[in-house]
């Protein structure tokens, strides 16, 4: 049978060559060179010297172990907190509305150091709860050490773990009720049905928490914790420059650790049996009053907790003078005005870098999704998992690899060194956002009805007309979604931004917030910026859900998008 295609016969080859070039120049070569720099001496010969130095220094071994322990601790704690709530949701057949499901992905779009800074205002000795408790206990987060970081990361990523867990289990909630009515005890159902169903979601949420915690730079630094592998690499690069062989080794250690985690967890994530498309069908018609009470209770409890956690930041953003008193002495909105007046540059930079990264991601994601779709069946699975495996490239490691690889390279037209421009920033962001882009684009590609294209081809429509009238309109929503996801992921990627930002005026908003949190006269402007940013992300998500409801009926399957374990068809 003849296959009709929108593309010229030769076009895919050119596009895939470009795609390969992108992956080679912006991923494989930098990482390869970094590995090479870590294990060779000045003259290029293999030398195990730096590895010996790394292993011999108790500080580095301690940092590596601390990193593993913190990341693992955060993932476990988040899972432990999420399990009882997910069981409650499952047991009572609650179905969270789409907007709440999306809010579960909010941790991916908000940097966790904001929580750490908020808790410092809330529990520090300078005011609020921390000051109230001073006579009994010193709650200051600076004294918590590693456990503090574990708690903060766990609180931050808890919604994600909860949501992936809930999404994986709700599908069979109705069947479980039927089974319970037949005489199976709930305990038995939880161990025999809920847990096996939930494992892929739980594993995915936990692995994201692990990888993000391992890679986090701003949170430990804001807590004064330096004995972790990411801050150690950061300190080495800032003291000795990008040519330091030990920072290469640390970055490699992070990559290996992340990849190992990803491979280990892939087995669990893959086990997903939930039928995502069927999920909305099992939605109960109406909640009874008991279900409603429990649902509202869960929601109220969680939102109160998060509001409390972020109240430190909200209070700081409206406080004019707040110094060693329970509550601010004077309140003012001046910080918001200052943030809006002085930080338009930061917002604009974010729009430029993240927009650029997101556009690139969508184009490359589409290509890769197309390649995966059309790959030989035995290659499909390795490709899907390999693309998702890009998730395990830590931002710190990627930034160090870029600094080493592009060191001394001149831009041909502007005559500027490459690492003095903001160009590397969106490139790093695009690599980091790629796994999500591929998912979203695969999704968009599948919404393209092949029969329409074939029909148009047969009736003699031009390629341009097909692309403009059929391909783009049907895929628009999916592509827009991909664009927004990549944009959001790039906007919070501080780990690579902190190393790659060439100047403060070139900083994206999340880095501006980090800097503003450390100006001399308090954290007002930084807090105001942070509140504005979180508000903006939440608003964007809500608007998006509204748009999805109106334009696109199977909106509920949006949720499949973020989750690489689920079947795409």
């Amino acid at each position, binding site marked *: 049978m003849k296959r009709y295609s929108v593309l010229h016969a030769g076009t895919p080859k050119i596009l895939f060559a470009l795609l390969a070039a992108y992956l080679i120049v912006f991923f494989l070569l930098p990482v390869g060179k970094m590995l090479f720099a870590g294990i060779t*001496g*000045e003259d290029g010969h293999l030398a195990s*010297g*730096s590895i010996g*130095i790394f292993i*011999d*220094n*108790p*500080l580095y071994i301690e940092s590596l172990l601390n990193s593993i322990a913190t990341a693992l601790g955060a993932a476990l704690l988040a899972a432990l907190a999420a399990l009882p709530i997910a069981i409650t949701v499952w047991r009572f057949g609650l179905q969270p509305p789409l907007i709440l499901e999306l809010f579960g992905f909010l941790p991916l779009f908000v940097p966790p150091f904001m929580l750490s800074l908020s808790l410092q*205002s809330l529990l*520090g*000795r*300078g005011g609020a709860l921390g000051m109230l408790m001073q006579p009994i206990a010193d709650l*200051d987060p*600076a*004294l918590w050490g590693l456990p503090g970081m574990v708690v903060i990361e766990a609180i931050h990523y808890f919604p994600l773990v909860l949501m992936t867990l809930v999404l994986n289990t709700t599908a069979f909630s109705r069947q479980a009720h039927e089974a319970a009515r037949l005489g199976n005890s709930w305990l038995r159902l939880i161990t025999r049905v809920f847990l096996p169903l939930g494992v892929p979601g739980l594993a995915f949420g936990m692995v994201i928490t692990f990888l993000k915690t391992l890679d986090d730079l701003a949170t430990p630094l804001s807590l*004064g914790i*330096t004995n972790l592998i990411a801050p*150690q690499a950061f*300190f080495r690069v*800032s*003291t*000795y*420059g990008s*040519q*330091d*062989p*030990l920072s290469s080794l640390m970055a490699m250690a992070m990559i290996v650790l992340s990849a190992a985690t990803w491979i280990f967890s892939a087995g669990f994530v893959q086990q997903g049996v939930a039928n995502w498309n069927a999920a909305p069908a099992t939605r109960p018609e109406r909640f009874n009053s008991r279900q409603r009470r429990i649902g509202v209770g869960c929601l109220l409890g969680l939102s109160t907790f998060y509001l409390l956690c972020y109240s430190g930041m909200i209070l700081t953003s409206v406080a004019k*003078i707040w*110094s*060693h*008193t329970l509550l601010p002495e004077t309140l003012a909105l001046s910080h918001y005005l200052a943030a809006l007046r*002085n930080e338009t540059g930061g917002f*604009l930079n974010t*729009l*430029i870098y993240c*927009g*650029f990264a997101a*556009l690139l991601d969508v184009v490359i994601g589409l290509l890769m999704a197309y390649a995966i779709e059309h790959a030989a069946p035995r290659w499909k699975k390795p490709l899907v998992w390999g693309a998702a495996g890009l998730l395990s490239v830590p931002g710190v490691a990627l930034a160090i690899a870029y600094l080493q690889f592009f060191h*001394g390279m*001149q831009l041909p037209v*502007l*005559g500027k*060194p490459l690492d*003095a421009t903001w160009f590397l920033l969106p490139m790093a962001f695009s690599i980091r956002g790629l796994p999500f882009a591929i998912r979203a684009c695969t999704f968009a590609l599948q919404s393209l009805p092949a029969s329409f294209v074939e029909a148009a081809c047969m009736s003699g429509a031009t390629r341009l007309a097909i692309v403009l009238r059929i391909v*783009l309109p049907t895929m*628009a929503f999916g592509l*827009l979604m991909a*664009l927004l996801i990549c944009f959001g992921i790039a906007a919070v990627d501080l780990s690579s931004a902190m190393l790659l930002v*060439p100047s*403060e*005026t070139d900083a994206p908003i999340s880095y501006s917030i980090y800097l*503003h*949190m*450390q*100006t*001399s*006269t*308090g*954290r007002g402007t930084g807090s105001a910026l942070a509140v504005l940013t979180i508000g903006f992300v939440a608003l964007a998500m809500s608007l998006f859900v509204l748009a999805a409801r109106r334009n696109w009926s199977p909106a509920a399957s949006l949720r499949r998008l973020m989750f690489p374990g689920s079947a795409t068809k």
Partner: protein
Amino acid sequence: MRRLLRLICLMLILVAHAGSWSADVVLVASPFPKELLSAYKKAFDEQSPAYRVEFVNFPATNTVSYLRDRAPGSRPDVFWGSSPDTFRALRRHDLLQSLEKLGNPDIPPVIGKLAIDDPELFYRGQALSGYGIMWNKRYLESRGIPPPAAWSDLAGPKYFGHIVMSSASRSSTTHLIVESILQGAGWDAGWALILQIAGNCATITERSFDVPNNITRGRFGLGPVVDFLALSGKYSGFPVDFAYAWPSIITPVGIGLINGAHNPEGGRAFIAFTLSEAGQQLLLRPDISRLPVLPRIYETQGRPADYPDLFDITRSYLPTYAPDVSEFRYQMVGALFDQLVTFRHRELVAISKTIHELAARLQRTPDAKAAALLERARALVYRAPIPENDELLTKKPLKTRDHIAAIAAREGEWARQGDRDLATARAWLAQANQLLSTRP
């Protein structure tokens, strides 16, 4: 669909726009806080519509490597910072252009004993910075702690857990304070004092500005800062105060034109503006609070009543500070500080607590043997890992991979030695405590 296209168009326009901006930009590299930079940006942009100022902000400790990595003609135009060491390093690497006659003739070349400008006019003094201790009045009062007067006061047990300080490798302010203590008190005694102060710290912050920030908020009680950060907090209405502590140090804030600047004319215009009366007047703004070098400014209206006096401050200048010595070992002092303090802070705090407690116990029940053990433990915990004449501190640092690896190997030695020392000291302290407990 149309929305998607519109969004893409908007983004493309923005990206294109970003490229066209760089025409008349004056790029100023400076570790100063945003308040100061944005005030100067606003005033200068208004005064000189032909130029637009942009800032590169990074710790002054990285300036030389940052500039050397960039080809001449593409470097920032102006460096503006308070660390004399950085200017010396820039001069040594030939990264500054002579300013010749550019400047304000009303600014005296010498104030008190302090030379304001570079003798060869490669940079000009733009303001003065003094270093001292800032404290939160409410925090100290509520805990009954008196404010300190000298650096050595900070080593006392009453300040344990109330001090906040930054790292010498990340903050040029802290670096300057550490170096001035090392030079004022001598290498070994200096490190002993620094380690004792660090042992009393609640936390070591990543950025300089987080020190005054934590003190103005009353999260921690006191810490070493540069004067203007404390004064800007004080004049913005926070209950904080500041004192120049002995051995004190005053440095001129320098401003210079970078060799290989992208836009040297614009750079000159910006330097001239900062030295003019309008530029000097800006320093008195409450959120900036720096000491101008133009004496006339101190007579103008609008200066807070207890604003420091130019003459008083320059009189207390410590003349023994040798920027040459500091510059040579700049990177290594930062690296030593990180190895001894930043990366070992929790252990250092824990053992300092034990030492303070044992000392208090010995005061109640004197015991010669236990006191001797305590002294030995103190000497071991608060000692410099290498002597002042170590080749790492006296040889010019090379930025090659092998050299960095060699330094890393030495750092590993210090880390192992540090772990052993702490373990020994812990054993001695436990022994001393045991002696006191078993006394009849």
